Structure formats: C-alpha cells, structure tokens
C-alpha cells in the first residue's frame, strides 16, 4: 500500500503500517503522540488549527539533563534580576517553524505558575522570559518548552546588542514625533505662504504661528535632543561638529520665531526648525541603521561551539562540560563530530577535515600517536584521544580570543562627510557671528542684525549635507544587493573605495575549491556504472570530481549496489561486485597493490583498477574561476596591489599565482600567519581588502579594513565579512570595487553640490537679501538636488 498518512502532530507523511494508531489519530513516533496529548490536555489544541499543515520536526527525546540550568554558574552567566526582583533570561528557541509555534510556546509558558512574561521573536527565534524564581525554577520552564516539542538554549545577550536595539527604538520614537509635527506644520505653512502673497491679517498669522510653535516645540526639544547631546559631547572633546551647527541653528531660529510670534510682527520660521531637525534626524537614522555590531558576530561564533564533550571515566562514557575537562582526560570523538580540545590519539584512526586551519578541503589521515587539533572535524574517524591542553589553552579557544581582539582592533576610516562637516560647521558659525557684528555696527538695530545672522544659519543648515552621504550609500547598497553583493555596513563602501591592497585567499576564492577532471585516459573498456557507483559514495573531493565528470558525460547513469565496499583512508576505495574486485584511488593505492603505471602527471590523479589491472586514469585540477583576468585588469587600472595568501604548499600556490599573474604570494600560511601579514600591511599604512571563504581566513578577515566573504564559504567567514558575495564569483568582486568607487564618487559629488549651493546662497543671506519664502524653497531645493543626483547615478547603473 503506497497511500501515506501524515502524523497528527508533525504532519510528516509515513506509511500507515509504521505509524502509531491512537483512536482516530496517527503518530509517527511516541514523541509526537505525547506532545499531542499534552496540548489537548492543556486545551492548547487550537495550535493545530493555527499551524494548518505546516510540517514540524518531531520532538527529540535525548536532551541533556535540564538541572544544569539551575546551577549557580549558569545563573551567574545568563540570568539577570530585573528592577521588580524577577529573574530574566534570554533564550534561543529551536524548532520554531511558523507563527503558531510562537503562539504555542508563549501560551504554554504563560500557563505556568510564576512565569510573568514570555516574549518570543519570530524573526530571530530569540525569547525573553521573566519569572519569579521562588515559585518556578528555570529548569521547569526549559522542561516545558521541551515537552511541547521544542528546545531552548541560553545565550548571553550582550550589553551592546541591548544597547543597539534600544538606540534604534529611541530613533523610531523621535522620528515619529518629528515627522508627525513636520507634516502638520507643512499644512499650516501652506496657509502662511498663501497669505504672504494674497494678504493675511496679523491676527490670523499669529494664530498660525502659535499652532506651528506648539508643533515645533516637541520636534526641537524631544526629537532634536540627539543634536544637543552630540553638540555637548563634541564640545567636551573640543570638536565643532555638525550637531552643534544644527542645534544652534534650530534653537536660535526657534527662539527668534517665538519672539516674533509674541511681538506679533515679522515672519516666524517654525517650519524651518522642524524641517531641519526632521531631515537631519532621518539622515542620522539611516547611518545608525546600516551599522552592524561586532557583538552580534561574536554571539554567532560562540554559539556554534558545543559545550559538552564525551569522556571516558571508569570504563564508561560520560558527558562532561567543556570547561571541566582537565589535561589527561580521554575524550571520545565519533565520525562527523567536531574536535573541541587538543590531544593525542590513543585509539582508532580516520580522516579529519582540517579546512578550518589550512583552508584545504583534502582530508588528513590520522592514527594512534598523532595529534588532533581543536576546531577540526572528524569525517569518518571514531577515536579516543588524551587531552594535552585544557579548553582555555586550546587552539580553538585561542582563535576565538584572537578573533575577539581582532574585531575590536579593526581600523575605522574616518568618513569624509564627518571630517568635512567639522570644518563646515566652524566656518558657518563664524560667518554668521561676523554677519551679526557687521550688521549691528552698520544698521545699529539688534533685531535686523540678529535676523540676518540667523538667516545665514538657516540657509546653510546642512540638510543637503546631512543627506548627501546616507542617500548615496543607500544607492550603493541597492546596486550591490541587486547584483548579489551585500554590503553589511554603509561605511564599507567608502573604505573599500579607498583601499590600495587586495589580499586573496586561494582555495574557494580564486579557485573553485573542487577538483575537476581535465583529462581522461582509458586503457581498457569497462562498465562506467561501476566506476560511478564506486566514486559516488565517497566524500573525498577527488572522488566527487570524478563522479561529477561521469554524470556530465551520461546524465542517466544508474548506480550498482556493491557486495562489499570500504574506504581506505588517504588512499582510495575498494569494492567487490560479482566476484570482481575494484579499486579506485591515488598512486599510493597502486603501489600498495604492487601495480605499475608508466604515465606520470603533475596534476592530481585518480586510477581505476579492475581485477588488478589499471583500466583508466583521470587527471584532476582545481580550476581557477572565470573573470580573473577582468579582476586583475581592474586592479591594475586602479593601482591596487594584489597579494595571494594560501595555506597550500609552495608548488601549487606558485602555479596558481603564475597562471593568474599575481607576483606577490605567500604559501603554507596558518590563520595566525595571515592575520600577521594583514597587520604588517597596516603598519606600512596600507588599506587592505581581504577576500576569503574559510574558517582559516577569519582572523585575517576580522583585521582587514574591508573583509569580503564568499557566500558559499563557512558561516563564520560570512559573519565576519563586511561584504558578502552571494554568487562566489570574481565578477561580483570586481563589481563590488566598481560600485564602491561609484558610490564614493557620488558622495563627493553630493557634498560638492551642497557646498556649492551654500557658497552661492550664504553671501546672499549675509547681504540680508533672503526672504522667508526663498529660505524655505532653497532648503528643499538643495536636498532635492542631492537626492536627484543620486537617483541619476542609480538609473545609469541599472540600465548598464
């Protein structure tokens, strides 16, 4: 019977014969069954109505003991006590598929005595739980989450992350107020300007002024508070910044307008006050939004390190906390697991993936007496090893510490707009002060001279200047995103445009990282299916390359099931089928079986042997990606030095470097070597762009001015990267350079436009020719010019 039934809990489909039947319900496992009954008992079964037919993962049964959540050391690290005296913890909930899952978790937790608040974020699966510790223990809360089919991990929500979220929220509130008030002021201003032309009585004008004043007050003192604060901190550091210009300009204009309103004559400028604050606030918000926090990166990395290790104690395997392992303990590692400590193998053998240290995907074979290094992973090895360093001193923990310091040491290139605005603010404030003095001496009227001085500040008020950089970077980010290039931080565009050195990793960055067959030599005819089935089941990159080649030759090739099949570590594969013996592997395998081959090749080779006779030989090479010449040309034109850093051996590195035309290359580089090389470049005053894909590149990536990660690379590299190339191609890399240079050019253009505009209008304002209408139009016009110019560039790029 092929008819399948879906499980009543997880909705995965199975044959009815293997399922548990329970009244009219079917379950795939007892885990699903117990969750289902629990939800029904707790009257939470409307969950199934809400989640519709979304498939869930069946609940796992083997959890570590939840009592470890109640230990004082756990409380010290993760649990905070809030102002009401309740406990608070941040968790990551695993297994959330849909909004109904969020609903279920929150409901189930709310039903528990003592739980005060459970708030789960659907987007990032992070949860905040508040509870009264004397009524319910955290372990009970965790047990509840597990019993309904989910799992929870504690995470240390760092102070920086909380701070970043709070800052963003504060900006939302301030912007909401500013935009609301500005939009209303604009309506009232329409009446004002209409009145200016067609005539308006002073009474009505005063009423409109009062309404505008009421609306402008919260904009200046609530939304504009960031500028006062920024100006204060700037002054304390003895820097005149843009905040000071905005704050003084807006405040002086506000009080002047207030004076005009009370006096009942002249023009009030409340609309300018709120417009300036709103525009500059939006510009500032765009900058805050595009900043990434280093804290997030570290969170992700440390989360990936498991905290438990299996060790042997009194002849049985026990699970132990990573921090409690001491030198001399015997640790058990099974195939597929990660090695978390450094040690010496005492039992077993097998191959290890050391790509996190060398960047090379070729497995390394290890046996008794050899050292295993933390951070590597076992591919097919089941071993016992004796710990020679505790976790704090292990290679893995060393790398994490180095990474932490590298992220903090990352150079910050001061943005051009910030530097410019310092000078600009100083000049404008001085000019307006001079204007005031000169006019006072000239006209002897305080009111006139004060008004003229203020009009200088209003005209100069850096709406356009504040928008110049954010708008241009938004255009750059958009252009990148549409081409699969993600700039994580807006400032990255400018830093990248200024770079003068490009450091490349070899495997996975300029080469594909997977060997491909370049020639096939057949000595005797054989059944292709046999070879295909032989290499298909192996994880070795060479075998995968051969399998891919055969599949390309014959799309419909099918597999044979061998009677016997075994992998010979570091040599190849041996299999038996109908009394015939097959061997597939490298030269070493042939030598071991005392077979002779005459052809010698410089490339990686793979031999296929049937009944002790070599029937075919394949040459494989790790191909260099397309568009490398275009990239090199692009770099040459822009005087960017290119350096190749590889963890590979000298000959291979040299060959690749010669082929692509890189003169400067280094080989056999450890992660630390790469990082040191970047530091050396920094000392020489270079601005470095580093491109990499592997765990072995992360230290260097973290240190570089701009880190570019290949999207197909390791998660950690993507996390550390400032720029991610989603399609891994070198074309994207040269596009990224082009986009960053275009954007930087655009920033310069925009700044030039706003400065030129000011140079034109400020003399007019100083001469006292500026009427309110002109001031208002001029302000919007300069902003429009900047935005329009950015759109022009975007349009040009989009068409090409």
């Amino acid at each position: 019977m092929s008819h399948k039934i879906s499980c009543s809990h997880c909705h995965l489909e199975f044959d009815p014969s293997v399922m548990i039947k329970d009244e009219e319900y079917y379950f795939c496992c007892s885990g699903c069954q117990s969750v289902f009954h629990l939800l029904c008992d707790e009257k939470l079964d409307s969950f199934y109505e809400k989640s519709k037919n979304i498939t869930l993962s069946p609940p796992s049964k083997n959890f570590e003991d939840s009592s470890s959540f109640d230990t004082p050391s756990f409380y010290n690290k993760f649990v905070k006590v809030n102002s009401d005296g309740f406990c608070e913890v941040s968790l990551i909930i695993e297994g959330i598929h849909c909004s109904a899952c969020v609903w279920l978790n929150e409901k189930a937790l709310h039903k528990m005595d003592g739980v005060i608040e459970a708030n789960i974020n659907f987007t990032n699966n992070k949860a905040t739980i508040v509870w009264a510790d004397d009524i319910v223990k955290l372990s009970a809360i965790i047990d509840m989450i597990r019993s309904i089919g989910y799992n929870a991990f504690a995470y240390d929500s760092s102070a920086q992350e909380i701070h970043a979220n709070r800052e963003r929220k504060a900006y939302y509130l301030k912007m909401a107020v500013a935009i609301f008030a500005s939009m209303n002021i604009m309506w009232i201003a329409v009446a004002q300007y209409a009145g200016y032309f067609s005539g308006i009585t002073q009474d009505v004008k005063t009423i409109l002024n009062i309404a505008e004043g009421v609306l402008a007050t919260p904009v200046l003192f609530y939304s504009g508070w960031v500028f006062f604060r920024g100006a204060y901190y700037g002054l304390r550091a003895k820097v005149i910044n843009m905040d000071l210009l905005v704050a003084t300009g807006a405040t002086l204009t506000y009080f002047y307008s207030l004076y005009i309103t009370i006096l009942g004559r002249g023009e009030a400028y409340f609309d300018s006050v709120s417009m300036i604050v709103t525009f500059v606030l939006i510009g500032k918000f765009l900058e805050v939004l595009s900043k990434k926090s280093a804290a997030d990166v570290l969170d992700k990395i440390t989360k990936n390190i498991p905290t438990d290790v299996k060790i042997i104690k009194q002849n049985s395997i026990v699970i132990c906390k990573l921090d409690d392992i001491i030198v001399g303990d015997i640790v058990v590692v099974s195939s597929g697991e990660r090695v978390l400590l450094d040690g010496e193998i005492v039992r077993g053998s097998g191959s290890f993936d050391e790509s996190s240290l060398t960047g090379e995907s070729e497995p390394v074979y290890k046996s008794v007496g050899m050292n295993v290094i933390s951070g590597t992973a076992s591919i097919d090895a089941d071993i016992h090893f004796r710990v020679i360093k505790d976790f704090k001193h292990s290679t893995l923990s060393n790398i994490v510490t180095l990474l932490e310091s590298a992220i903090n040491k990352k150079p910050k290139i001061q943005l051009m707009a910030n530097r410019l605005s310092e000078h600009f603010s100083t000049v404008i404030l001085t000019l307006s002060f001079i204007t005031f003095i000169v006019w006072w001496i000239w006209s002897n009227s305080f009111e006139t001279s004060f008004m003229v001085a203020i009009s200088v500040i209003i005209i100069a008020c850096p709406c356009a200047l504040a928008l110049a950089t954010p708008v241009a970077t938004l255009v750059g980010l958009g252009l990148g995103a549409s081409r699969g290039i993600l700039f994580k931080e807006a400032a990255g565009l400018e830093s990248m445009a200024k770079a003068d050195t490009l450091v490349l990793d070899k495997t996975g960055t300029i080469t594909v990282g997977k060997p491909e067959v370049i020639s096939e030599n057949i000595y005797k005819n054989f059944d292709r299916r046999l070879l295909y089935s032989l290499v298909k089941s192996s994880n070795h990159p060479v075998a995968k390359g051969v399998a891919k080649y055969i599949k390309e030759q014959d799309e419909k090739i099918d597999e044979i099931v061998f009677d016997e099949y075994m992998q010979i570590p570091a040599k190849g594969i041996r299999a038996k089928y109908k009394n015939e013996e097959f061997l597939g592997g490298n030269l070493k395998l042939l030598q071991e079986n005392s077979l002779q081959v005459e052809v010698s090749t410089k490339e990686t080779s793979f031999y296929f042997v049937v009944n002790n006779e070599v029937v075919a030989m394949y040459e494989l090479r790790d191909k260099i990606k397309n568009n490398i010449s275009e990239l090199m040309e692009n770099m040459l034109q822009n005087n960017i030095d290119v350096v190749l850093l590889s963890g590979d051996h000298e000959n291979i590195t040299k060959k690749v470097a010669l082929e692509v035309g890189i003169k400067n290359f280094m080989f056999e580089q450890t992660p630390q070597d790469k990082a040191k090389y970047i530091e050396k470049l920094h000392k020489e005053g270079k601005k470095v762009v580093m491109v990499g894909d592997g765990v072995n590149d992360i230290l260097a990536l973290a240190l570089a001015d701009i880190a570019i990660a290949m999207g197909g690379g390791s998660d950690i590299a993507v996390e550390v990267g400032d720029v991610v190339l989603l399609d891994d191609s070198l074309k994207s890399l040269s596009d990224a350079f082009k986009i960053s240079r275009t954007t930087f050019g655009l920033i310069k253009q925009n700044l030039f436009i706003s400065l030129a505009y000011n140079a034109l209008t400020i003399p007019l304002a100083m001469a006292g020719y500026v009427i309110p209408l002109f001031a208002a139009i001029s302000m919007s016009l300069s902003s429009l010019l900047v935005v329009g110019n950015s759109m022009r560039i975007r349009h040009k790029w989009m068409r090409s």
Partner: protein
Amino acid sequence: MDNWVIAMMLGVSIFLGAIALFAFLWAVKNGQFDDEEKFLNAVKFDGENELNDALKQEEKKESLKRKYKPE
C-alpha cells in the same frame, strides 16, 4: 469670530492627531512592532480567548509584583 473658528479647528485637529501619535508611540515603546512577522500574524490569533488570557496574565503579574513588594 473668524479667527476663533480657525484657532478652534487647528486646536482640535492637532489634538486628534496627537492622540493617534501617542497611541503609536505607546505601541512602539510596548514592543508591539519589534517583530514584524509576529505583528502581522497577531491579527490571525485574536479573539475572546486571547483577550482573556492576556488579562489573566496581567493579573498574575500584578499579584506577584505585590507579593514581592509588600509595601
């Protein structure tokens, strides 16, 4: 008279707008927009039961708070 009408209209409309603004600010502060997905899906899970549960939760929180701070 005309002036009085203008002033009143302005005052009333700004006041009404301000009420909406404060409701929005309250919602932002309350974290109702923190998670855009959840915020959009919340409509689907709205009903009498949900309101009752929310009230019960609120009462539980208050009673616990009182217990912790007897003064």
